């Protein structure tokens, strides 16, 4: 009986609407990943040769950046949920973690921008071949997601500055966190698929 009275964390975390967005995103990227796989199967040589032009180190750094920033977001959510902190303290700590996550998001964007400049510098475009078409479509589409995610995190950060989240009500924070994890997850699949697997 007792357990029924304990307030449970709502599942899934965050607003229901964000989960609709997430499923749509997963299906969309999923279709592109499947498209990539089939196109690669049809022309492995072009794909393998073209892949050599990509900067794996840069891609690996991107992966580390995103995973680390996701960790910062987890810490921000934990701070808000923590029972032994006051509202002000919790929001203050969360805002620091969020700022770190935003900074890492910014680093990702800068690093990707440099990578794109180098690629375009070589005269590569969407029409060069199928591999580069997929590479550019996937990474640029993902780049747009990171940009949006960073904007979302910034808005959440602003709210923590006004002590806007409490232990009981932090739906907005969790919604943004879930979206950021999606952005992270997509990269974790995208990186090995496009940069590494041969």
């Amino acid at each position, binding site marked *: 009986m007792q357990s029924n009275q304990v307030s449970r964390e709502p599942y899934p975390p965050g607003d229901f609407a964000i989960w*609709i*967005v997430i499923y*749509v995103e997963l*299906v*969309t990227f999923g279709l592109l990943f499947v*498209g990539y796989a089939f196109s690669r199967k049809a022309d492995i040589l072009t794909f393998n040769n073209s892949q050599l032009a990509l900067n794996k180190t840069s891609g690996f750094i991107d992966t580390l950046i995103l995973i680390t920033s996701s960790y910062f977001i987890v810490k921000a959510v934990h701070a808000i949920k923590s029972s032994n902190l006051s509202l002000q303290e919790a929001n203050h700590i969360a805002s620091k973690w969020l700022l770190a996550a935003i900074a890492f998001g910014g680093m990702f964007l800068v690093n990707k921008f440099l990578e794109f400049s180098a690629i375009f510098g070589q005269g590569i475009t*969407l*029409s060069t071949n199928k591999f580069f*078409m997929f590479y550019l*479509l996937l990474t640029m589409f993902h780049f747009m997601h990171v940009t949006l995610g960073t904007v979302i995190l910034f808005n959440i950060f602003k709210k923590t500055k006004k002590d806007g989240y409490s232990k009981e009500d932090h739906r907005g924070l969790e919604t943004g966190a879930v979206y950021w994890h999606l952005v992270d997850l997509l990269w974790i699949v995208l990186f090995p698929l496009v940069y590494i697997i041969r």
Partner: protein
Amino acid sequence: MKYSSQMVAKPYFIFALILLAGEILFGITMSIQYIYGDFLFPMLPFNVLRMVHVNLLIVLLLFGFMGATYYLIPEEAERELWSPLLAKITFWVFVVAGVLTILGYLFVPYAELTKLTMNDLWPTMGREFLEQPTITKLGIVLVVVSYIFNVTMTVIKGRTTTISIILLTGLFGLAFFFLFAFEFSDNMITDKFFWWFVVHLWVEATWELILGALLAFVLVKLTGVDREHIDKWLYLIIAMTLIAGLAGTGHHFFYIGLPGYWLWIGSIASAAEPIPFFLMILFAYNMIKNRRIQDDNKIALTWAKGTAVVGFLGAGVWGFMHTLAPVDYYTHGTQLTAAHAHLSFFGAYVMICFTLISYAMPILRGRPHGNCAKAQKVELTSFWLMVIGMIGLTLALTVAGVMQIEMQRIPDSAHAMAFMDVQAKLSTIYIIRSLFGVMTFVGLLVYFYSFFVKEERVAI
């Protein structure tokens, strides 16, 4: 009616309905020409009728949207319209320009019309949907700019709501993308590329914002659900619409001379386009389930639900059928496209106009609780006649489209039948299509009749 300036909506609604009658009549005439090729020839050749049919559609929807906006904005902004006089002037300018243009199409050979309107000075004519003489196009710009200015001023000076912001975003988008109608290139590929900026980004992006805002307005009024709840849905629908709709333009760039990557962008982005329409169904039914008030105008709610469902079927399901590049390779420009176009324009855009008209007209005519039960019953009959008529017409065109693809598109060039031979084989289906068209027209006449059903007097 809360604000007297909402009254300016009335002539817009009435004129939109008159144009719809013309729209359907021209459509039925053309459907007969599919069976008897020389019907009314040379007086009204197919190409002229088709031009009138598609142009009327755009104009009638613009009238519907304008009427709806003029009704909605004062209530949303909680103040009178900035300038009711401007709205009245705009109405008459648009009517005169529209009628003159249609008469020009009907009675002056098109080549003559281009000379008469000095198209060579600034060539923009001769493209599907954008056949209007340049001078008419400039007139449309003037009308739309004054309309948007009027609405914006009202919103700025009054209360701002999510509905009015989304409506305005849609309207600004509509105005902006129409500017591409003035882009004219000698290169047919470039020309088509920008042509779709008007056609696609109107119907599959900016108009959807207008649709979402109008639907949300009626649902707020009829269900009494919290705005906060409705706003969230609206933002979600709009975000999905814009993301899928903007990139979805790519599905028009298949096999027309543009780079191959459009096949991927167009296929994948437009595969997501049905989602906002599906969300609109969830949205409408969710709001109705959680309603706080029981409005007497039940038929307006029926139209709202109908818009969501038929819009999803026409735009979402029938659109998805041929949006993937490998499928479109065979289906491009067949009767399947016509099937999709008919049900999506009707379900999403004509029906939202009916929703607004059925909600607002009784109020504008001094019946704040909607029409009497008998009139609503008549209107319900018209609802089903039109909906079944349009779905029947769409199914007939779908069958025709599939057969056309089978006979004309799939076989190799040595075995494929010629276009006209295929059309001759489809005549039975075209007869069925015409009958459903007539059913839709009868539905519209019944709808007109519902305006004249008298309130029953209760003996005391």
